[in-house]
């Protein structure tokens, strides 16, 4: 059962490929059978229960080099900023200020950044950012970025 409807994950990579295509694709398999969907929700819930605390754990600053931290903050301001605003007050995408994030769980934020949000313009960043880097960025967002 689990095998049939777990999240299908395929990795394309390798020399000679267009670098843009060397990204991880997460395809969400959907089934119309209620039973399977119910099981899917259960298993997804189970996976999230186990994974979410891991995703939400704070990242020690020393895990990411100072140079990389600088790059990440630059990316946050300039590239995330193209939709969320340079000051993260929001644009086409929602505001990412500590007030706006408020009570939203950190783990959900991490998952959104890594895998994107289907049906919206939010793209997945897992091909460019590691999970540790994303957790560090999310910590920064909740604290407020200069």
């Amino acid at each position, binding site marked *: 059962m689990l095998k049939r409807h777990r999240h299908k994950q395929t990795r394309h990579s390798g020399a000679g490929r*267009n*670098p*843009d*295509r060397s*990204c991880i*694709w997460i*395809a969400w398999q959907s089934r119309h059978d209620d039973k399977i969907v119910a099981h899917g929700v259960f298993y997804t819930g189970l996976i999230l229960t186990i994974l979410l605390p891991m995703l939400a754990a704070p990242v020690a600053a020393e895990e990411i080099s100072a140079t990389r931290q600088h790059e990440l903050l*630059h990316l946050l*301001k*300039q*590239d995330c*900023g*193209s*939709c969320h*605003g*340079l*000051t993260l*007050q*929001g*644009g*086409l995408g929602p505001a990412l200020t500590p007030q706006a994030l408020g009570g939203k769980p950190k783990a959900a934020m991490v998952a959104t950044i890594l895998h*994107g949000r289907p*049906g*919206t*313009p939010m*793209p*997945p960043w897992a091909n*460019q950012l590691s999970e540790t880097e994303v957790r560090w960025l999310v910590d920064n967002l909740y604290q407020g970025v200069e």
Partner: protein
Amino acid sequence: MRNVIISLALVTLTACAGVRGTGDMGLVIERASGSIQIIETTNNQALQRIEGLGDLSHASVVYSRDARYAFVFGRDGGLTKVDLLKGNIAKRVIQSGNSIGGAISQDGRLVAVSNYTPGGVRIFNADTLQLVADIPAVYGDGQQRSKVVGLVDAPENRFVFSLYDAGEIWLVDVNDPGKPIITQFRNIGQLPYDALLTPDGRYYIAGLFGEDGLALLDLWHPEQGVQRILAEYGKGEQKLPVYKMPHLEGWASAGDRLFIPGIGHHEVLVIDKNTWQQVARIPVPGQPVFVMARPDNRQIWINFAHPRNDTVQVLDAENLEVIKTLTPGKAVLHMEFTPRGEQVWISVRDADRVDVYDTRTFARVQSLSMTRPSGIFLTVRAGKIGL
């Protein structure tokens, strides 16, 4: 006596050492520092830096009909009127909490701003920047307000814009500025993210993020409603992630062909303007952001989203082949052609540079130091429809 007056006038004029036209002038946005630089393209130089324009992270500019004043639309809702000749801020208002762009009416008397928060369009007197009309982009049960994108001026003193959250296009007649007449087109498609008006002012086309195809409104025949074009484009294909939403402004038209950025596909689409059918898909190295024609339409220049935003490609508009690939530097954000297209100005954000290229030889002829430059807007825009 008359001679004396004429002589006095001549003396006064010649005493003004700075007398000049604005036809070769423009602005570069320095997005992170809330500043702009006034530039001129005859000697390819920056003339002056002006600060205090607020959050310019997604700024755009339109010009007064005399090309003396620039209206700068900031992200923080700031609307700033800049005097190019005096090199100062003539007027400035904060008109909303979060805005995305604007347009100036055909007669030059009104400046409209499209806002995200609160969602809608506000229209101002171009002289005084006083509010003339407020158009909330309400939809659904009437309580919700949509973000507004793709605002352009259209012939017969109208404005056209799209409602991102509502999936609507609104056509607004502002001939009686205080009493705008609004025509709403509903269910035009999901998540229109930007729009353009063809250079002749006839077709308004909105790009859709939420579904396939583009929404087309023929302003010669608004009674025919909005139709979907290119609905088959990209169907059944896995879409690639989009790290920056494409812009549809300055789209390229050469003969019967139109060139637009594919979304979620690393391609430039070529459309036949007579049939609205796709005639070619040109593979490019990344998600195209701007696809712009040189003013003579001989070349098509393209820049790309992160992570290929260091690259610019040039297409031959006739045989659709890539004739040049340039790598100006990290984060190429915008390109602007000189009025007749012999040169193109390119902003390279992370290199803190604006480069000027010769479009015939592709040689870099000038490099100007700017702080985090983004949009480049030349006064040639003053006389163009739909920008």
